[in-house]
């Protein structure tokens, strides 16, 4: 009587399968997808620069001691500002605050949208409709105008920026999170939890949310792309805190200082490029995440010549 084991176990159809553990598989997935690799590298660079700026730029970014508005040279890789500060140093040292603001805003906004989305999905009924309505309203209100209005009323500073940005961006992902919450709601493991008598809040926090990790990570990444741009935009308009050093405030001063017309164009271009760089990093990783999750979107292999028997 053959109760023989099935020949192949359901491992990934991967010739290099042998790495175990979630981190190993994640690294695998990243390395295999070019976009993910590029994006991850970008982000790692940014984080490194943010954590160890002193290793890369020796100059004090605020020291206005150099020649003014000089173009790039060996001594000043990106030239100097109107006041004689080293642009390169500013760029490197400004990374930290820029990254912090971005990550904090995205994280808080993701958490808020998660709570609202999942609660709406799980509790349903009137709560759902009210929360969905709230989400839709916030989604439709044009972001930058709202940001501008809010920021101009509040005292300038990083905290204001964080608050204001979070308020305008939490709604972006709430809808998707709610949809996934809805589809999970009917699943068996939740019914099991209900039967056990668990409280709703427990079910939401402990059962549903961990299952949605991939969507949550994707939300965080997608949101970051926008937050980077919006934050910089706000600061560019002078509505951030101009005393703090971020890429956005660099842009503000560059514009005010006439960098393009009369001075050092790199003063204006470099921080903008940096914003684009970081945004692209998040966008690439996010896009690749999509592809990894949905194989239909992956690049198609070239067709090979057909052979006849």
């Amino acid at each position, binding site marked *: 009587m*053959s109760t023989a084991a099935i020949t192949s176990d359901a491992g990934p159809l991967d010739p290099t399968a042998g790495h175990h553990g979630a981190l190993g598989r994640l690294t695998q997935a990243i390395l*295999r997808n070019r976009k993910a690799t590029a994006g991850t590298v970008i982000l790692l660079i940014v984080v490194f620069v943010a954590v160890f700026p002193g290793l890369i730029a020796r100059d004090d970014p605020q020291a206005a001691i150099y020649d003014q508005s000089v173009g790039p040279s060996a001594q000043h890789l990106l030239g100097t500002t109107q006041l004689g500060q080293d642009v390169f140093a500013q760029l490197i040292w400004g990374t930290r605050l820029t990254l912090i603001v971005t990550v904090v805003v995205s994280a808080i906004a993701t958490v808020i949208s998660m709570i609202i989305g999942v609660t709406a999905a799980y509790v349903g009924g009137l709560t759902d409709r009210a929360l969905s309505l709230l989400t839709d309203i916030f989604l439709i209100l044009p972001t930058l105008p709202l940001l501008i209005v809010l920021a101009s009323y509040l005292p300038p500073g990083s905290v204001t920026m964080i608050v204001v940005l979070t308020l305008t961006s939490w709604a972006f992902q709430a809808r998707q999170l709610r949809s996934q919450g809805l589809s999970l709601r009917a699943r068996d493991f939740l019914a099991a939890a209900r039967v056990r008598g668990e409280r709703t809040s427990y079910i939401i926090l402990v059962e549903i949310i961990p299952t949605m990790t991939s969507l949550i990570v994707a939300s965080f990444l997608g949101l970051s792309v926008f937050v980077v741009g919006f934050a910089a935009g706000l600061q560019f308009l002078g509505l951030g805190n101009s005393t703090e050093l971020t890429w956005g405030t660099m842009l503000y001063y560059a514009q005010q200082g006439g960098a393009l017309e009369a001075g050092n164009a790199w003063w204006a271009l470099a921080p903008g490029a940096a914003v684009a760089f970081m945004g692209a990093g998040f966008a690439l990783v996010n896009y690749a995440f999509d592809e990894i999750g949905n194989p239909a979107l992956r690049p198609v*292999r070239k*067709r090979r010549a057909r052979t006849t028997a």
Partner: protein
Amino acid sequence: MPAPLLEVENLSVSYLTDAAEIGAVDRVTLTLNAGEFLGVVGESGCGKSTLVFAIAQLLSPPAEITSGRVVFRGQDLVQLSDSELRHVRWRDYSVVMQSAMNALNPMKSIGAQFKDTMRAHDRVSPDAIRTRSAEVLRLVGIDAAHLDSYPHQLSGGMRQRAMIAMALLFTPQLVIMDEPTSALDVVAQRSLMTQIKELQQQFGFAVIFVTHDMSVIAHYSDRVMVMYAGQVAEIGDTRSIFEQPLHPYSKGLLDAFPSVRGPRRPLTGIPGSPPDLGRPPSGCRFHPRCSEAMAECTTTEPALYTVGDTRVRCLLYAEQLRDAV
């Protein structure tokens, strides 16, 4: 004897993914004569749908025909270019899919979908289009008023019949059906099957009918092909296969269906599950689950052996007259 309508020779289909190449269909050979009703049965994942879509030249990446010929009315479809194929499509053979809700364009009315098919093949006057559309709908028992309806406005059974009507627009010689009754309840299933058989007898087209449920085609098919792990396990007369299945897998399948009449006996299933086609078992693909496996089954790949009118891929019959594959 007239030439067969369809000759499939050594057809293989693979899914070419980044990670690996998965053989979904392995060197399938079959012949179909005009007016014949062939049932193709097997578990989910055995490759039966992939096979018929390959025959119909409807595969999408990453699935690809990697070798073999599909000779339909003397032409090898695999070698035809897209534009040459287009002439043959629907006119000479058509396709009916499992779920009409998914197979019909939700944005277009039934009539519009009939119309674009007819327009694609010929210059036809609007009147002729309307007449023919009403005609095929009547064949399946649907009122012509529904030509203006959208798919979501019809019931499930009606939708399915509308799909069949569409398949008959040009009264093709072959209609390939991929589990058309699986989405219906038992009563609707029966009614649809009867209708299909009547139409077949009326117009004389051949049918390839894919299903995972052998009982559905038991009374309607002329021949049955049992598939396992991308290969033909057994193929022969319906009667022979049902009364005297040769392949242990076919036996297992039939044993799993209780008979309404006859003595009660315990139900048996087939232990285990279908193999991973990325790494199929050595030798006979069924040996890990086979109750009659022999020593050589793990090492020797069986060919299709002829036993009477049936051909079976099983080493138990290897001593019989071989029919090379």
